[in-house]
């Protein structure tokens, strides 16, 4: 997958994982992993970008005798998901078009799904 596209999708996935309520790094990775693979080294810069763009807020709270950082989505973060879904409708339409014409693309080759 194109790196830019993947990054955009991952950012929205992280925000989606926070929609039900605040969460922390490892829990976010566990929630997302059935859908798209992500490691801490990918998550860290994403959380940083989302924080500096105001899509989420961070608070440290004590948990089992240590400090744990919790991330919470902001209204700006929710708007980000909504606009992603709207934009994605365009992508889906384009996808349907590409797919409907795939027999002409493959020219007798195999289409991998």
């Amino acid at each position, binding site marked *: 997958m194109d790196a830019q596209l993947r990054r955009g999708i991952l950012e929205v996935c992280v925000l989606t994982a926070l929609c039900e309520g605040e969460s*922390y*790094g490892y829990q976010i990775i566990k929630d997302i992993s059935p859908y798209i693979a992500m490691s*801490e*080294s990918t998550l*860290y*810069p994403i959380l940083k970008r989302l924080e500096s763009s105001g899509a989420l807020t961070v608070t440290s709270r004590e948990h089992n*005798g*240590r400090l744990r950082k919790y991330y919470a989505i902001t209204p700006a973060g929710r708007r980000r998901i909504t606009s992603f879904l709207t934009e994605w409708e365009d992508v889906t339409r384009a996808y349907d078009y590409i797919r409907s014409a795939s027999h002409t693309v493959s020219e007798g080759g195999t289409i991998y799904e």
Partner: protein
Amino acid sequence: MNKAEFLDKLCQGLRFQADPDEIRRVVAFYDQAIDDRVEDGMTEEEAVAALGDLDEIIRGVKDAWEQEPKSRPEEAPSGDTDRRDFDPAVSTRFEIFDTSLDIHLLPSPDGQVHLEYPASGRWRYDITGESVVTIRRSRKSTPPEQFHFDIFGMKFSLSKPDFGFFTENASLKLLLPAAAPVAVSVNTASGNLTAERVRLASLSAALASGDVDLRDMEAEGRLSVSSASGDVDAARLTAPEIALTSASGDVELADIRCGVLTAKSASGDVDVENASPANKLTAGAVSGDIRVSLAVPCPDASLETVSGDIDLSLPGPESLYSVVARSNSGDVHIGGDALTGPHRVRIKALSGDIDVEFGG
């Protein structure tokens, strides 16, 4: 690889890359990632392995920094020393920001505050402010330094030759007068912090992987030091409030006199010997052990670990204390009937053993 080794290697890999706050944030992030996996049932080694290749992690962090405008590569400073003097009646607070230098707090030979710092062709120390003096190291803008001079009215400029060479133990010294104590705050990544025979108004220090060594020190106010993966050692400290913590390093304290004492480590051990907290003691660890011996009875003591063991030695007869000790799966041993005394002691462990002795 265990957590401490991993975090230390991570720090080493990042130390020349960004400001100490950012390194601390990254270390804290991975510290938490490991703790959360351990809590989920993995061993420390499994948790570290699950994070993936360390070099890749370091590369990822560096890539993220490079996407940001303010990231800056760093090099070690070099040889000679510069010096600045301050009047403690005017300058009452010193804030040091650095990444890799060792920082030493030492007694001043006179009534002034003296700062000694490395002079280098590559480095610049921005020393600003009057009552609050901020000491911040930054890389010089390139070209680094130029000589400007006039000959017969013609202006010339020449680049200053750079004699900078790497010095392993480059350090910054702040010499402090005991008669006029000032407040000090230290912020560094891989540098160590030492303090010896000094008297301060207060000390607040945050380190990422550096070790801390404090001896024969007195503070009029709060003395608070934390290191993410370094060890914290302290002996003969006096202050109304003392808080010494490490995430994965050991915390070892001896002969501490204070009102409120907090000593914590997550995966390291906490050793407190012959302490006299007059009001309150809090000792905490997660997988490390806690050993505490008190010189005087403390009215409110609280000790807590998850999987580590707790050993507590209290002075005087057991009738002075009311001890509540609980371990879910570990053994609890209390060396006497301590149920109704005025000094409250609360001890909690999840799987560790608890041992309390009296009259030591």
